[in-house]
């Protein structure tokens, strides 16, 4: 099939880190905090590499938008098997207000520029949990989308994607070019081996800016305040249903 895959990798705060809110309530503490690739994006990269091993894909281009440190994320993607990388540099301050719609525009432009046949993204990022970028990218490109993919197989000249739905799974036939978003059960990402990390240093990494791609990053939102969720209160035990209804009425819930 020999497709070219564009894979998105977002640099997010590591899943194991306990996130703390900044004292001025403008956001969360980012300085000095461990960051890594979004786990769903790792699954996306892994799937692209597996498709390359199965000869469905001939070239993998990894892309990441954000501050300079995103290059580390891209190097991890290349160590896992991506052939080249594109870093869309967005300064940290500006990046805080960037939303999926901006990223989707960037990815759509890049997909056209590199002539990608399939765009594989993680289904959502673990910092904002938006679950919008893949869908919006498909819309901008006017390409078919297969989100929450749990399995991707070749089906003639198209792809048969098994996707997670509320009731279980469904399998759909998707014409290429398409946008796919990776869900948890798609695969288990490999460890980037140390020799591959060293080889990745020789792979090409391009730097672009949003302006180069003609994308306007003007924020569409304004952050008013970021606060901790309320502390979980202790529960109460009731003896029977009548007491439960009385209590709920008393709290104004019904």
């Amino acid at each position, binding site marked *: 099939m020999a497709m070219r895959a564009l894979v998105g990798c977002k640099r997010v705060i590591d899943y194991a880190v306990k996130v703390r809110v900044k004292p001025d309530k403008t956001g969360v503490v980012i*300085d000095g905090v461990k960051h*890594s690739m979004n786990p769903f994006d790792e699954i996306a990269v892994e799937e692209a590499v597996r498709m390359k091993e199965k000869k469905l894909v001939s070239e993998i281009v990894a892309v990441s938008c954000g501050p300079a440190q995103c290059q*580390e994320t891209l*190097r*991890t993607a290349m*160590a896992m098997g991506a052939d080249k990388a594109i870093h869309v540099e967005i300064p940290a301050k500006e990046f805080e207000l960037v939303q999926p719609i901006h990223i989707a525009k960037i990815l759509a432009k890049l997909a056209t520029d590199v002539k990608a046949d399939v765009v594989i993204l993680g289904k959502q990022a673990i910092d904002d949990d938006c679950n919008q970028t893949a869908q919006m990218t498909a819309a901008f490109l006017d390409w078919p989308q297969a989100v929450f993919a749990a399995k991707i197989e070749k089906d003639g000249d198209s792809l048969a994607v098994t996707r997670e739905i509320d009731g279980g799974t469904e399998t759909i036939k998707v014409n290429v070019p398409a946008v796919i978003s990776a869900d948890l059960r798609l695969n288990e990402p490999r*460890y*980037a*081996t*140390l*020799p591959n*990390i*060293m080889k990745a*240093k020789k792979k090409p990494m391009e730097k672009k800016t949003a302006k180069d791609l003609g994308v306007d990053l003007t924020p569409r939102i304004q952050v008013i305040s970021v606060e901790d969720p309320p502390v979980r209160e202790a529960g109460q035990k009731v003896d029977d249903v009548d007491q439960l209804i009385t209590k709920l009425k008393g709290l104004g819930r019904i």
Partner: protein
Amino acid sequence: MLSKLSTATRILGRVNVSPSTLARRRPWILPYLSSISSNSSKLENQSAPLSTKDDGLEETREKSREAQIKEPPSDLKKYKTSFGKDIFLGKFDLDLFEFPEVLEKERHETLHEMLVPIERFFSEEVDSKQIDLDAKIPDKVLQGLKELGLYGQQVPTEYGGLGLNATEYARLQEIISLDGSVAVTLAAHQTIGYKGLLLYGTEEQKQKYLPKLASGEMVAAFALTEPSSGSDAASIQTRAKLSQDGKHWIMNGGKIWISNGGTADFFTVFANTSDENAPVKSSRSISAFMVERKFGGVTNGKPEDKHGIRGSNTAEVHFDNVKIPAENILGEEGDGFKIAMNILNSGRFSMGSAGAGGLKKLMSIAAEHAISRKQFGKYLSEFGLIKDKFVKMAADIYVMEAMAYTTAGLIDGGKYEDCAQEAAMVKVYSSEATYRCTNECLQILGGMGYMRDYPIERALRDSRIMSIFEGTNEILRLLVALNGCKHAGQGLRDMVKQLRNPFQFPNLVWKKAFERRRHANDNPKLDLKLSRFLHPSLEAASESLEYSVLRLQFGTEMLLQAHGKNILDEQLMLQRIADIAIDIYAMTCALSRASRAYCIGLPNAQHEVHLAEYFCIGALHRVKHNMECILGGPGTNGDELSKAIADQIFKHKGYFPEHPLNKTFW
């Protein structure tokens, strides 16, 4: 992100003098000036050592050196003399105060990228508790380690390895040591198993074996120890005889306690190749061979059931008329002992970072416990005795890291012929500190620490071996002391010649007389002025260091004067001298690290300075105590009594006092 130049620029700005004048007054700022003046990273200037830069400091250094004995005239040496040996002569190599910065940006970044998958692998795939219970590392884990590339860390990239230098290797050990069994399995394979090939192999030998060893296709082991030859490595009895046609060596013998003995396909074996009829055991009687299991005749015993590192395979290996191709000899016939010693020397220093890595994790567990557990209405962390344990632990870890990376820097710098002395010092200190601190962590957790559910008791069992293998601490202490005394003896011989010519060298005679008098009053003149090369806040600590160096010099002189060549038999004295030298090296590394941290503005640098100061206070106590025992007579050090009692014990084959309840009459 903290500016690296904050302290230096603040001082420059405030003082308003030219950099060169400032450097003369405050030499410690020198390494960091280049970053301000040229706007380039200090790291690019790391190759030029402090002592050869033309920076206006020559005058200061000259004065410093005048306080030391004049260097005896010798041929131009290619290598510098070892720091750990020169301190026995009271000479302090100021280069050690420039904490090594070996890795330039590119390599530093690559190294840190490598740490991520390794950490992840160890936290997700390595179940240390199960490995300890089963006394086996699962094949899946070993396969994962091979795929990660961890079987060829120091093999050059052209042979398929990672090509790591000593510093990078030491950094990886911090994570790998999180599981003792895995760490020893990997170390037995590469740090000693095929290190001989790396250091002494010919191109053909390397091409033949290194790629397979680096990928883990072949596993290696180091076979030196025998039932009757442990520390006395030169007395091994495994024999190898050259066949009639000169094409093969035939090897017969047995080795014990060989790590990876049961799993390895490639052995670096040491055998006696000298003439059987030769009466004298010489250091040229041993040769090193690369033996493949497939040569036939190689068998191994069952895995030994061990106290710790239970997942690592340890077994007897027997060689029964093994035919070894003649081209599989390492180096020349007779090089074996030298090869064995160099192999062991080359990997020793990483014990510092390995111990530190494991301890940091344990310390977090203990600290978490101390700040959450309450007794008597207060958190454990509020009690003085508990605080003391943590502080001593932090100081030990700090010093272990400083020593390991300083030694790695010395090795990577390539200016020294070998760093055997310093590596031995790191090993002795780190092995004992790791066991001691792990023990304290267990104590802090109390009953919980004793339970197998927590990783501490396993860590304690795993770390017990550190004082035994890779050269027992007793042997290494003797090595440090004797190497130092031998080096001092050579330097002193020239000094004694000069002292015997008072009319030709009157200054020296007077200087020595005054020096001796001051030493007799335990008040040596601190004219090395080491404090000028460190940040001013470390002045008191640097004086302790200087005092220790000068006392070591004095102690060595007194011992050599009193015993001469018989110093070999005075093991208690040698142990004291060695302990002083180790404390000196530890202080040097700690102060160098703290000074740099403060100067480049690392976070928490102020507290690092405190930690270094705290360590030096403790070290000074030990140095003073050891000197007192060296210089004081039998009444102070109890050595005569000790010898007599020891003889009694062995005469009685054990404890000799009569039971306290026994009576001689009723």
